């Protein structure tokens, strides 16, 4: 299994390593081409640039749900770090975007879009991620330097950070932009949103939301799917409604497996065609399974939390998204190549080079189809 992962990981890196560099090279040589139709070349180069960007952009996952529905715990689990505080009753309206950056950084983005980097006062040090799962402190804790972490995270960047209270970041800041040097975030970046504005006013959170590819709605098993949730879900603008999961959290609160069946049956009836899948999960147990002091029954916790099914479902959605993108990139690159082929350059030399580039582009477009999507959500080194 490990070997397969390794192999696929290498293949994945090829997107950046080969395909992207080839595209980059093509773009470069296009700009070096001259002749009567420079404008056409620039246009083509720009189009290739857009495809590159789209391929580089990580898949974006939105985690949604009412208060205390386990969103933060789920994110913490996926990131394998206690990044977000899970607060029982916070009146939080801020969205949190977590994405890759080489150095840990935290910005607040005000309603007007002003970015404000949080100074060192907002960071502290924390040695280990053994912090409580329901921390008494309302701190965002990020621990980036621990080489001995159970899941084998290693990061060269040093300073661990502790983010201060979320409370103090209340409006006017409407989005917190967290950058972390975690490999996963290059594949899958995440945004946690509660109370997405009901109207069409543009806020940093809604802008960040526009690029969402996959959505997860968390609902409490003990309360699952109320009218307010149904309304919110219907209102959320999503490009791909089928790229979404309904997670029924607090699986641990259900004693009887027959009850689990009952809940799922009701939800399937109540939300037909609204979600790609409906899964029961205990984010709490999933996170607990990562903690060193739960090392002994970690596997049992992990199994009972059903988090693997969630990871699998999420991975499928990510892969679909990636394949979808590759197909789209293939289509786009082919059409760019086709339009390049139609251009007639009077300069024989340039015309010759143009043909080479066009062929190369067709080639890359075909290559792209061979790039396999991510094989796991496991961490990739920063």
């Amino acid at each position, binding site marked *: 299994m490990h070997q397969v992962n390794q192999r696929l990981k290498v293949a994945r890196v090829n997107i950046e390593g080969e395909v992207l560099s080839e595209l980059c090279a093509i773009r470069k040589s296009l700009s070096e081409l001259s002749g009567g139709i420079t404008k056409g070349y620039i246009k083509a180069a720009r189009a290739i640039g857009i495809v590159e960007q789209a391929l580089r952009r990580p898949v974006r996952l939105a985690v949604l749900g009412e208060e205390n529905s386990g969103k933060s715990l789920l994110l913490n689990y996926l990131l394998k770090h206690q990044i977000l505080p899970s607060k029982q009753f916070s009146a939080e309206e801020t969205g949190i975007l977590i994405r890759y950056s080489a150095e840990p950084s935290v910005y607040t983005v005000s309603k007007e879009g002003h970015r404000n980097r949080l100074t060192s006062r907002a960071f502290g040090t924390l040695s280990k991620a053994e912090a409580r799962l*329901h921390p008494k402190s309302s701190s965002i804790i990020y621990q980036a330097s621990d080489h001995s972490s159970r899941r084998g995270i290693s990061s060269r960047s040093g300073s661990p950070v502790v983010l201060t209270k979320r409370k103090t970041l209340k409006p006017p800041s409407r989005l917190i932009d967290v950058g972390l040097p975690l490999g996963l975030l290059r594949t899958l970046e995440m945004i946690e949103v509660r109370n997405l504005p009901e109207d069409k006013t543009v806020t940093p959170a809604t802008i960040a939301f526009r690029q969402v590819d996959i959505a997860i709605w968390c609902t409490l098993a003990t309360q699952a799917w*109320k009218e307010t949730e149904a309304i919110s879900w219907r209102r959320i603008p999503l490009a791909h409604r089928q790229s979404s999961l309904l997670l029924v959290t607090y699986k641990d609160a259900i004693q009887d497996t027959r009850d689990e069946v009952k809940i799922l049956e009701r939800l399937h009836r109540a939300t037909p065609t609204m979600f790609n899948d409906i899964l029961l999960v205990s984010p709490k147990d999933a996170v607990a399974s990562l903690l060193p002091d739960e090392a002994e029954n970690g596997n049992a916790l992990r199994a009972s939390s059903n988090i693997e099914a969630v990871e699998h479902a999420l991975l499928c959605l990510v892969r679909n998204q990636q394949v979808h993108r590759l197909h789209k990139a293939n289509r786009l690159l082919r059409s760019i190549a086709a339009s390049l082929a139609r251009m007639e350059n009077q300069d024989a030399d340039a015309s010759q080079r143009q043909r080479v580039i066009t062929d190369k582009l067709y080639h890359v477009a075909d290559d792209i189809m061979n790039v396999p999507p991510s094989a796991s959500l496991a961490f990739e080194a920063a």
Partner: protein
Amino acid sequence: MESFGSLIDSKVTSRLGEIKRRGIDLGEELQATLHARLGRFVNSMLSDIESHSCRIAVIGQIKAGKSSLINSLIRRPGLLPTDINPSTAVITKLYFGAPAERNNTALFEFFGEQEWDRIMSGGRAGALTIDREAAVGAETLNKALEELRERAEVRLGNDYKSLLGKHHLFSSVTSGLLERYVSAGDNSSSDTDSEDENEASSHNYSDITKNAEIFLEGQPLGYPSVIIDTPGVNDPFLVRDEITHGNLGDADIFLVVLTAQQPLSKSDLALLRMLKGLQKDRIIAVVNRIDLIDMNGEEAEELAAHVRNSLLHEFPHTDIPVILVSALWAQTSLRSDHEELRRVLTSSFPAYATKMAERGEPGFEIPRENWSDETIAEVLYRSSGIPAVLAGISRLIGHSVTAERLLPLVSTLGAISDNTVISTCYSIKSLNDAAAANEHWTRSKVSESLTQLENLLTDVETTLTKCKEDFRRLLTEEIGRLRRFMLYTAEQFAEDQRASLLHHGTYASFREDFQEQSFQLRSQLAEDFYKYITEISKQFLARQEEAETAMRQAVKSALPNLNDVLHFGIQSRNLPPPSIMPLSKVTAVDIDNFWDSKALIDKVEPPEANQFKEIVFQSFAEVIAELFDLTETTQSDHVSHALRRLRFLSYSAIYPLAQQLQDLVSTRKDMEDLSQGGQGWGTPFFWEPFLDECQQQLARSEKLAKEAVEIRQDCIRLISG
């Protein structure tokens, strides 16, 4: 968290019970001594006292654990059906302390045909969606209704319609029975572990059951009570939501059940706002399911403080008790199952109990491994918060509307006794005066007196007719004014929203603003309504006092020798306000479909905005109309109640006089038959015994009057606590 661990305030409820019992004794004795017509009035007062109970409505969102909470409060785990899916589909009233012959019976009333048709057309929400064509589609609702119809057919057969308008009565109460009538049940076909379950789900009547009345033995609250379990609000199936809102009516105490996982969500607040303006001291906030959030003591305190602060914000100047509860722990304790009890010791309970015990919260103890099952069960129950809820309820029973409703009843009985005393005194005095003056009571003199009394009765009736017109005029005018004011408010609101919509330019950007504002409007309307209706009640009560004075004068001028004025007893200081639940009803502009259909309009032009204004106004006008329909019914009840009271209290002084005169005549008639003489009206040989009888009557009435005063004082002492 002062309420933790305090034990049931049984003193309050037993005092109230004592007052009630003495009131009944008083009424029964009084009834025996009175003229038949007055007896009937006393009889109706008596049955009012006998059926006096505390009405407790348990409300909250779906799956907050309302039924579980009730099961714990009444110490009957598993009685009300609970399930992992929303379960309660029917308003269920549990009666305690009803007459013994009704105990352990259950009455299930089905929807009438018209009501069923209305539900099938989607209730109010459906009617709005379909009529106005405001919506692009009502598929969700229609689908749910279609499912409901199909399910009813599957469960009850094609002729389920023949059940509509009927009821089922049972002479025993089992949880299985309740399961069949009030639990939403499973409508899945797949999970049928056993034949039995299949059987049960195919005979589920809950879809067509409107009302369930269950009569149970015992008095878990120490006083006769009705506990009303309601289907949760915020149910995706709007119809059920509406049933609840329409039936909250006039409970004495509202237990608002919140869930610890999401305390005071938006829909909780919406529900609470509808209770706004009620007299204070009628709400208890119960934060259930604390077993689900691993809490230590600090967080428990934080949670309670959070809820308390939000409540204070919503209800300034009131002190709504906030009680943290785990119905699960209470039920586990009550079931006393060894395995279950042991399992609790490995749950979040020990940590919570330890922290609370360390903080010195009364009733908590640090759990120990070596505890016996009994000890665990006992500590678990104490820690579950249920005792605190019971204590809170019994406090409210004593100090709030429950006791206040009993006072006028007892007081009216007292007034009747007083009036009997007055009139008997008058009779005795007249007789003595006549004897002293050696006046011969001739037949003509007696009939003259009788005529005089008849005239007085006519006077009383005339005064009453005047009062009736007066009351009606007052209420029609004042309530009409209030109605116009509220309509004006709604119109202003609609106009403001029209302008705001134009300003925003699109429905999409306007939506959030509007929803917030319309939420506030409802709140505002509710507050205005309560304020003015209280004012009107005061005026109405003042008019009643004027009417009492007029009555006194009429009697005084007819019978100048009365040694006291008529008594009318103490009235409640304020009349129970009508329910404002219509204000919470769903309107066209609350429906998603409305906004979805408008979302595509890029730029709102004035005609569109005008149309919107019209829809907004009409929506609220309908709500207001419904509110005032309800108000009119309530107010005309108040009027007829007031008139009845004035009439019979006046009669209570006049009837005994007429009675005595008639007795005199008939006794004399018997004498005449005997002696054939007929001239000796003043002769002492029947005069004396008659006078004796009057004296006895007087003594009886005085005793009753004295007793009534004592009961009344007890009641007042209890209320002012």
